[in-house]
C-alpha cells in the first residue's frame, strides 16, 4: 500500500493543471481517491457528519452485497446442475463445479455492468470537468444481482447505459436522481425485452425445456402456494429452500439469509436505514394480512408471511428502497415511504398477474412519491410548531 501511495503522490503533479497529462486529471483523481481517502478537505461552513466520504460509504454497501453475490454465484450453478439432474442429493455435492459454473455466468454480467456504467460516468465527468461521481459503484453491483442469469450481455450493457443516462446524468448526476438507477435498468429490460426477464424459462441457466423453471413467486401466483406444484414432480420448494435461497430467481435475490446478513451490516455501520427496511417489511406483511382477510383468490389466501420468502421483496427492501438519494429523508417520511412501498409490492403481486414481481415497480413508485411525502412531513412539522408558538403567545 505504501508503494502505491508513494507512486500516486509522485505522479500527481503531472495530472494537475499545467502538468503533462492534465487532460486525464479526472481519471487520475477518480482512481487516487478510490484507493486512498483524499487529503483535500472542505473548508468553510461545511458540517461534518461522518468521518467517511462517499466512496467509502459506497464500498460498505458493496461489502454488504457480497454474501448475496457469492450465494448467487453458487445458486446459479446449483440450479443449473439440478435441472440437468446432476449432483443430486445434498446441495453441497459438486460444490466447486457449481461455483465455477455460476462464476462463469455471473461475473461477465458484473464486468459489463461496471464497464458500461463507469465508462459513461468517466466520460460525463471529464466532459463536464467535475470529479468522477462514485454513485455507480453500488448501482454497478446491484444491476447484476437483480437480473436473471441467462440475460444476454449486450442487454446488460444497453440497460446500464439507459439507466445511467436517463435516470441519473440527465438529472445532474450522483445525488440528484429521482429514480433508483439499478431499478431503472431492470425496469427498462423488463419492458423492452420481457421474454428475457419474466416467465418460467429464464431463471435457470441453460436448463432443459421440459424442466419447470417457474419461480416460487410464479407458482404462488398461479396456484396460491409455492409448495406443491405438481404431485409427480420432485420439484417442490420448501420453506427452508426459500429462506436459504436454493430456488430459481434473479441472481442475488434468492437467499434471504445472505440478504439479512447484508441488512445487519448496513444497519450496524449506520449506512442503510433500518427504519425503511422495517417499514417495507411491515407494509408487505400488513397488506398480506389484509388480503388474507379478504381471501377471494388462492393467492390472497396464501399465508401472509410467505410473501417475504419469495421473489425480490426482501432484496429490494434492504438494498434498493434504502437508497439514501431516492428514499424519503424525514423520519416520519421514511415510515410512510416504507409502508407505501411494502403495501404496493404485495398489492401488485396479488392483483396483477402480468407483473409477478411487485417490488420493482413499488420502489420506483415510492421513489417518485418520496419528495412529496417529505414535503408534507416538513409542512406538518412547521404547522405544528407554529400552532405551539401561537398557543404560547396566547398564554403570555
Amino acid at each position, binding site marked *: 500500500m505504501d508503494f502505491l501511495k508513494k507512486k500516486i503522490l509522485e505522479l500527481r503533479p503531472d495530472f494537475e493543471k499545467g502538468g503533462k497529462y492534465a487532460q486525464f486529471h479526472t481519471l487520475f483523481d477518480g482512481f487516487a481517491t478510490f484507493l486512498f481517502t483524499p487529503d483535500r478537505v472542505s473548508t468553510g461552513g461545511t458540517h461534518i457528519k461522518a468521518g467517511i466520504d462517499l466512496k467509502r460509504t459506497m464500498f460498505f454497501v458493496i461489502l454488504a452485497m457480497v454474501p448475496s453475490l457469492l450465494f448467487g454465484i453458487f445458486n446459479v450453478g446449483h440450479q443449473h446442475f439440478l435441472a440437468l439432474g446432476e449432483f443430486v442429493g445434498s446441495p453441497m455435492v459438486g460444490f466447486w463445479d457449481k461455483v465455477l459454473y455460476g462464476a462463469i455466468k455471473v461475473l461477465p454480467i458484473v464486468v459489463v455492468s461496471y464497464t458500461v456504467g463507469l465508462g459513461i460516468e468517466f466520460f460525463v465527468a471529464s466532459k463536464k470537468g467535475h470529479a468522477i461521481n462514485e454513485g455507480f459503484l453500488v448501482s454497478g453491483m446491484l444491476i447484476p444481482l437483480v437480473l436473471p442469469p441467462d440475460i*444476454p450481455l*449486450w*442487454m446488460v450493457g444497453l440497460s446500464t447505459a439507459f439507466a445511467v443516462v*436517463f435516470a441519473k446524468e*440527465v438529472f445532474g448526476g450522483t445525488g440528484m436522481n429521482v429514480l433508483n438507477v439499478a431499478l431503472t435498468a431492470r425496469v*427498462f429490460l423488463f*419492458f*423492452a*425485452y*420481457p*421474454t*428475457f426477464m419474466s416467465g418460467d424459462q429464464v431463471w435457470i441457466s441453460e436448463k432443459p425445456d421440459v424442466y419447470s423453471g417457474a419461480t416460487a413467486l410464479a407458482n404462488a401466483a398461479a396456484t396460491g402456494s409455492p409448495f406443491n406444484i405438481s404431485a409427480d414432480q420432485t420439484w417442490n420448494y420448501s420453506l427452508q429452500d426459500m429462506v436459504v435461497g436454493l430456488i430459481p430467481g434473479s441472481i442475488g435475490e434468492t437467499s434471504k439469509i445472505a440478504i439479512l446478513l447484508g441488512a445487519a451490516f448496513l444497519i450496524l455501520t449506520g449506512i442503510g436505514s433500518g427504519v425503511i427496511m422495517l417499514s417495507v417489511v411491515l407494509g408487505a406483511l400488513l397488506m398480506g394480512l389484509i388480503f388474507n382477510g379478504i381471501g377471494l383468490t388462492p393467492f390472497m389466501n396464501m399465508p401472509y408471511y410467505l410473501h417475504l420468502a419469495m421473489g425480490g421483496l426482501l432484496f429490494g427492501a434492504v438494498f434498493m428502497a434504502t437508497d439514501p438519494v431516492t428514499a424519503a429523508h424525514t423520519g416520519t417520511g421514511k415510515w410512510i415511504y416504507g409502508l407505501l412501498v411494502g403495501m404496493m409490492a404485495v398489492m401488485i403481486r396479488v392483483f396483477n398477474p402480468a407483473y409477478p414481481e411487485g417490488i420493482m415497480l413499488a420502489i420506483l413508485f415510492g421513489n417518485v412519491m418520496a419528495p412529496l411525502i417529505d414535503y408534507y412531513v416538513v409542512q406538518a412539522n412547521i404547522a405544528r410548531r407554529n400552532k405551539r408558538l401561537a398557543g404560547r403567545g396566547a398564554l403570555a
Partner: protein
Amino acid sequence: MSEVLVQPPAEKKSLLGKKERKLLTDPLSDNNPVTIQVLGICSSLAVTTQMKPTMVMAISVTAVVALSNFVISLMRNAIPPRIRIIVQLTVVSVLVILVDQALKAYMYDVSKQLSVFVGLIITNCIVMGRLEAYAMGNKPYPSLLDGLGNGFGYGVVILTVAFIRELLGSGKVFGFKVIPDALYEAGYVNNGLMMIPAGALFVVACYIWIQRSFAKHLEEKE
C-alpha cells in the same frame, strides 16, 4: 421545403415573401409545436408505433390545422369574442369529420389503426393553439401558411419518432423489414419498450435534447 427556400428574395406583395417563408419554416425548428411549444404530445405518443399511420396522421393534422386557420381567419371579424371557442370548435369538428370520412372511404385499414385518434384531432392543442394565437388576429393567407407550417412541424417530429420506434420496436420501416435476419440470429431482439407509448416519451425527449443542444439560443437564460 427546398423549393420554398430557393424562392428569390421577393418584394412586399409576393406570395412567398420573407415573412411568409418564416411562417412556414419557423414551426419546423425554432418554434416547433411539439418540441418547443409542447403541444400535441398526446397524439405523438399514441399514433407513432409505425410509419404508415403516422404519415396519414401528419397529413390529416396538417389539413385540419391549415384549413381551420384559413376558415376562422375569414370569419374572425364576425365572431363575437365571448363565444369564439365554440365557433372554432364547430369549424374544427366539421373538418375533422370530413377527414375521418375520407379516411374511412379510401384508407379503411389505416383508419381502423388510428381509431379514435383521428377524431381526437379536435382536441389536439396545436389546432386550437394556432387558431387562438394566430388565425384570430391575422389575414386568411398568412393564417393558411401558418397552419401549413405548424402541420409540417408536427409531421416532422412524429415521423421521426415513428421512424425510430418502428425501426427499433419491430425492425421495419414503412412495414418493410430492414434489420437483416442475420442480426436476429446473432441474438438481437426487438425492443418492446418502443412499442408502448412510454417508449415514445423517451424518443421525444431525446429529440428535444438533440435539438436544444444544437440550437443554444432556445435555452432560457438563467
